[in-house]
């Protein structure tokens, strides 16, 4: 999930010809002032924190300015705010437009229909989650013919647009559809899409690019998303690693088994906090790297729960033993292992040689991990 900040989303919007307010990004109050003085940002203007979290309006992260000095003050106030754990490093300054309507528009995937879905609502400008379902219209869009004229007409009707704004909507929808396809978007959202005079303007832009399509979009490779430093390292090493609050580390293979392991640990009063999904690998070195990463998260205990398929038990055991050799004594932690499946016997033997016992039962091994995390009684 490559989430683009508003200003980057708007850069993409611009590429597809979606109408936007005039504006620019500033990373310091001085920059904000010079953007206003140069006329790049017309007055009055809006100053918006560039963070990925929603609900900025209520957190003082969106302010208004009618002069260069107000723009400086607003930028100063916003930069350095922390917003749901994310420090604001950039603000977007944009002309404040006089608008007559705020609408909602998005394209995303409808998994059940296995089709893209165009979502529209005349109740824009608020979080769509808070809008009543009867006020939200959904239309499946078939990728073969693409977005059709009749779908656009229904969108215009739902949004209550005729004349100039309806024509503008046609172009905006066409552009959004192309963007959705060509940028491999998971979500494109415009909220609000504003009626300004006789046309439409996208006041906000939310674009999420699908991770799996990142290979087609090297231009977004620098986007860090909201990852912890360890998650970021994991991502670079192509290891599925999620860090939350909690003191038990879980190394498993496959999302389903990882989640089931979590369910069982919670059942026995455990507090799992780091999840490492080995996925399908049979490279012992990758297992070693994953394990060292886990060590850096300083868990109280680690549960290794592997069912060998593509990932063979002996591969995991080898990688694990190598990692344990590398972990400094001070960072060691109790390790409970359960390895089953392909090459189970070989894996168990390798672990045993390194002093680790594999407990075959999921229930019993989970109980052992929870006990280990609580520390000596």
């Amino acid at each position, binding site marked *: 999930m490559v989430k683009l900040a508003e200003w980057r989303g708007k850069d993409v919007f611009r590429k597809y010809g979606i109408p936007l307010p005039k504006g620019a990004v500033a990373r310091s109050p001085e920059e904000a002032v010079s953007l206003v003085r140069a006329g790049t940002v017309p007055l009055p203007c809006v100053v918006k924190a560039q963070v990925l979290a929603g609900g900025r309006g209520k957190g003082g992260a969106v302010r208004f300015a009618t002069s260069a000095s107000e723009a400086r003050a607003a930028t100063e106030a916003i930069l350095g705010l922390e917003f749901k754990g994310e420090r604001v490093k950039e603000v977007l300054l944009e002309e404040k437009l006089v608008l007559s309507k705020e609408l909602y528009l998005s394209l995303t995937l409808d998994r*059940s229909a*296995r089709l893209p879905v165009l979502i529209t609502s005349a109740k824009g400008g608020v979080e769509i989650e808070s809008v009543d379902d009867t006020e939200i219209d959904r239309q499946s869009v078939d990728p073969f013919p693409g977005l059709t004229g009749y779908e656009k007409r229904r969108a215009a009707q739902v949004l209550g647009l005729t004349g100039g704004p309806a024509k503008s909507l046609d172009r905006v929808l066409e552009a959004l559809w192309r963007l959705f396809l060509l940028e491999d978007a998971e979500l494109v959202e415009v909220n609000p899409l504003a009626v300004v005079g006789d046309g439409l303007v996208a006041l906000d832009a939310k674009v999420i690019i699908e991770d*799996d*399509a990142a290979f087609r979009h090297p231009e977004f490779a620098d986007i860090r998303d909201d990852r912890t430093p360890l998650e970021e390292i994991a991502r670079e090493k192509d290891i599925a690693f999620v860090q939350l609050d909690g003191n038990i580390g879980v190394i498993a293979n496959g*999302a389903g*088994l990882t*989640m089931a392991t979590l*369910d069982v640990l919670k059942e026995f009063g455990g507090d799992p906090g780091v999840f490492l999904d080995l996925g399908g690998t049979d490279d012992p070195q990758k297992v070693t790297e994953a394990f060292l990463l886990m060590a850096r998260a300083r868990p109280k205990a680690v549960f290794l729960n592997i069912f060998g398929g593509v990932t063979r038990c002996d591969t995991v055991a080898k990688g694990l033993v190598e990692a344990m050799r590398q972990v400094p004594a001070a960072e060691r932690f109790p390790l409970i292992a359960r390895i089953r499946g392909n090459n189970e016997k070989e894996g168990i033997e390798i672990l045993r040689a390194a002093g680790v016992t594999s407990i075959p039962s999921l229930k019993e091994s989970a109980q052992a991990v929870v006990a280990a995390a609580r520390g000596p009684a």
Partner: protein
Amino acid sequence: MTVLVHRETRVLVQGITGHQGTVHTRQMREFGTNVVGGVTPGKGGSTVEGVPVFDSVRAAISATRANASCIFVPAPFAKDALLEAVDAGIPLSVIVTEHIPFHDMLVMYHYARSQGARIVGPNCPGVASPGVAKIGIIPNVVFRPGRVGVISRSGTLTYEIVNGIKEVGLGQSTCIGLGGDPVVGTSFVDALPLFQEDPETDVLVLVGEIGGTAEEEAADYIQHHFTKPVVAYIAGRSAPPGKRMGHAGAIISRGRGTAETKLAALKAAGAQVARFPYEIPDLVAAIVAREAHR
């Protein structure tokens, strides 16, 4: 008669010369699958694990009359591999490849459907009927012929559960790993009718995950059309909202698709619900025992 695979299934492995393709060609053959050929463009004329390799699916079909494909080719080329299989007339393609962009999969799914072809996957362990054939990567050791059907959105967790069924002395008719990607070729609702009609299946185990609404739709189908006993399990009951646990199938969004809504729907449909994977085999064994006493 089993589900999806049968004794006349002749499997082609696309991407056979890659490491995974080669390893699993061997394992499929060890399972008893009739792997008739492989395809890797530019490698035609060679052999892998004693299986002839062709440059194109069309050439492979001419030579081998293959009627199913197992796709291991890397994600950027998987769409092309599937289209080639469909255009050559392959009616069933199991796509093991993970990380295929869902925009690609949308085209693959709808094109295959328009041509009357079925996809299982992507990012899936595949299909296996012990004693008959396996297409995919589920470890051979977990199987034993029997009358329990399994459909699952998970990978490894499926192995765990299938193995558990074996350990209580039962066996499987067919196991299908659907894959947990946002767009799958075969969903629970697509697979359920196959098990309903399969005379080899007495009981069905359904393994779901949080995210999406596939389990709710399955519950609806079970309630109205499925007459065999069902044991269901949903992984991720305690997963923190909004964090993904490994793949896109596991995002919780907007209060729908939670473990609670899924479990409630399955219970209402008459399925027995397991709280943990290790409860499944016992629930299945109890059903089998009860049915035997009827």
